[in-house]
């Protein structure tokens, strides 16, 4: 079992690793996208192109690598450098701090009531940022913390027009907390899917991975429905955190917010979570079912 699980986790992490170079080439997650960027051939056919100009190759409007004979824009300088006078326009280099309280919510469901959060603090330039990311759920019943409650400190590096790589550490919160090294990718996939994939190596020797995928559907320009799926996988069980090996949970949620302003949006939502494998067994041993559902109401804020 544990061998199989390790393979599953390694496969998950390997797929993350594979995403790195792909991200740099602006292609994840579907390799198919690599050459077309946007399935242009199909699109062009759809437009009833008259006497198709065969020499015309699309070459990819997004991503790809520079051809060997690409222009070098610096050649126009003939060795001159920019002015060194004071008060030069520097706005393109500034570090910009941002706090995003993506979820701060009251939850009520079949396992009682609790407070959930998902918060991201970033600061940095267009190329490099510090990311502080935390998520969790604290249940008022027995003051229990969701086993995925954690905080991460990560270095974000721009790896493509829509993608960034993440390297850093994750610290679990609560009983049986582990410290992990973290590496992952995040970004915006074609068709506007927000993706966060992170792999972890724990100080206790465990491997883990977490995947999050979400989408913002504009019901109106202010009423926004965000379905999200999250899954976690571990190579070995953790008795203290009541996590089994293999896929430990999958969570599907939908939150609908109303943007009173861009920065202030109350929301309501519904979360359905299913514990899997050994994690489900832990729950059953406590007399609980593996499924959990809760209604949530909260605020999305940023500044």
């Amino acid at each position, binding site marked *: 079992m544990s061998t199989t699980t390790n393979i599953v986790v390694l496969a998950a992490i390997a797929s993350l690793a594979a995403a790195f170079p792909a991200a740099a080439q*602006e292609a994840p997650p579907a390799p198919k996208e690599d050459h077309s960027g*946007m*399935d242009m051939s199909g*699109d*062009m056919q759809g*437009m*009833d*192109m*008259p006497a198709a*100009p065969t*020499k*015309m190759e*699309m*070459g990819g*409007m*997004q991503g*790809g*690598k*520079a051809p060997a004979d*690409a*222009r*070098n*824009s*610096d050649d*126009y*300088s*003939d060795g*001159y*450098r*920019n*002015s060194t*006078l*004071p*008060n*030069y*326009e*520097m*706005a*393109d*280099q500034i570090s*910009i701090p*941002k706090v995003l309280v993506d979820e701060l919510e009251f939850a009520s469901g079949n396992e009682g009531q609790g407070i959930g959060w998902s918060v991201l603090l970033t600061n940095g330039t*267009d*190329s490099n940022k510090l990311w502080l990311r935390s998520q969790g759920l604290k249940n008022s019943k027995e003051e229990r913390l969701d086993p995925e409650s954690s905080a991460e400190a990560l270095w974000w590096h*721009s*790896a*493509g*027009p*829509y*993608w960034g790589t993440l390297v850093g550490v994750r610290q679990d919160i609560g009983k049986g907390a582990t410290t992990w090294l973290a590496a992952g990718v995040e970004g*915006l996939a*074609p*068709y506007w899917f927000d993706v966060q994939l992170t792999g972890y190596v724990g100080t206790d020797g465990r491997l883990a991975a977490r995947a999050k995928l979400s989408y913002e559907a*504009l*019901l*109106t*320009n*202010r009423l926004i*429905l965000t379905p999200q799926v999250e899954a976690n996988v571990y190579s070995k069980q953790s008795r203290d955190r009541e996590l089994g090996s293999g896929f430990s949970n999958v969570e599907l949620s939908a939150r609908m917010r109303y943007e009173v302003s*861009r920065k202030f949006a109350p929301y309501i939502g519904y979360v359905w979570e299913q514990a899997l494998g050994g994690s489900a067994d832990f729950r059953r041993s406590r007399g609980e079912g593996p499924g959990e559902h809760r209604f949530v109401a909260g605020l999305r804020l940023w500044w």
Partner: protein
Amino acid sequence: MVSSLALPAWASGSDGGAALSGTEFDLEIAGLPVNYTGKRRIATAVNGRVPAPTLRFREGDTVTLRVHNKLDEMTSVHWHGLIVPAEMDGVPGISFGGIAPGETFTYRFPIRQTGTFWYHAHTLAEQTGLFGAIVIEPRESQVRPPDRDYVVMLSDWTDEPPLQVFLNLKKQSNYYNFGQPTVGDFVKDAGEVGLAAAIKKRQMWNASRMNPTDYSDVSAATYTYLLNGTTAAGNWTGVASPGERVRLRFVGAGTATFFDVRIPGLPLTIVATDGQNVEPVTVDEFRIAPGETYDVEFTMPDAKPYTIFAQSMDRTGFARGTIAPSPGMTGPIPALDQRPWLEPIDMMGAMAAMAGGHTGHGIMEMPPPARHARTEYAANNDMRVDYPRTNLDDPGAGLRGRPWRVLTYADLKSPNGDPDPREPGRDIELHLTGNMERFIWSLDGIKLNDSKPLHFRPNERLRVTFVNDTMMSHPMHLHGMWSDLEDAAGMFQVRKHTIVVQPAQRLSFRVTADAMGRWAFHCHLLYHMAAGMFREVVVA
């Protein structure tokens, strides 16, 4: 605010400080409380005026302008379109070190041109009101001066500090766009044209993570659009009696707003752009970009009021004024248009035009491919157009298919031919690039502070070719030297100082590098300039 002048500027009497003329000027820059939206805010005024006073110069004079900075921050004044020595050009960090708080900087330069120009802060204070018109009268009196001569400055005001606007865009680039396609639009489309067609319409945009409604970064969600510093409700009015010939000098002083201008009922004859006379062309509507000027003439047909209607390109709001025989008259105000989607040619250029993705401006011959820079393949650039369109006879997205005549660059022709008929000795190809999602803007994928300057050799005639790889229009402004726009065949067309490059378009202009020194060269959308769509030019 009215700068009506039936006579040449210097011959007319005082109009309360709204216009200044002569050769010696004292301009005091200071904060001024204003209220455009119901909230009190502090604007940046010149001599207590927003917009700043119109400066009336005369060709051949040497003017001295003492600019006193009474703000608590560095400021600057740039004379937009004026050919001045490099150290008088007013760009902090390039022309000089800026004007420190409490200091006075004395600008002094000869006036070697005529026409409509403007001046503005080369800092974020351009957004808070530091801009005004410049009208330069010819040394010799005009053959047939108009009976009425008004400046019409179109601008955008926000109650937010401009730095906040910039940070909002950097943190969420669609921050001010409340016109994005919704699920409801999709359902409606599906009902009208079928599910497959509705999906197809969206596929190109969504697959490439591009927004078909991304006309403007900043909308009426924060902007109030002003005409001569007056809100639409305030209704600035220029007086003109029946039979009088009227000249309106339109100045595009928006920091992030293109305006589509028309005066319903009055055909407008475009007689000049960017201070340069053009062969008169009569249209019903024209688009004016930040940085551009257009001189428009018409004869007042009757005693009715006529509305100057200037809607923002993204159709979220409008500026408005009136031309009428007497103040207090109001004409009907047209409805704002619907915001149409950008079209495939705005993303794919000639590819889409060839494919018939756009009607009316189809290109039958495939233009040569664009030569991308190596740096355009990096993370700061999200898209490249391999086969840009080259035609100038396109009024741009939102104005195509109008039932009336709309000005295009193909209509603008200098009457006197190429001012420097030398064949350009070399070509510089520059691509307008960016990352819409992250609000990064650049040239050839390189932001200002990651770039090296463009080197022009003294007195050389060279060609600059732009390819717009982005889906937004960019008004590109070269300081210190004229931009002589060419048509698609490389023939001289019109002299300008600010040239709009439409999405997925290639166009070229010629430069005579006759101005030694360091110059700014940038997109005149203020927040694109701040984000890095800016190069330095060194003539040495």
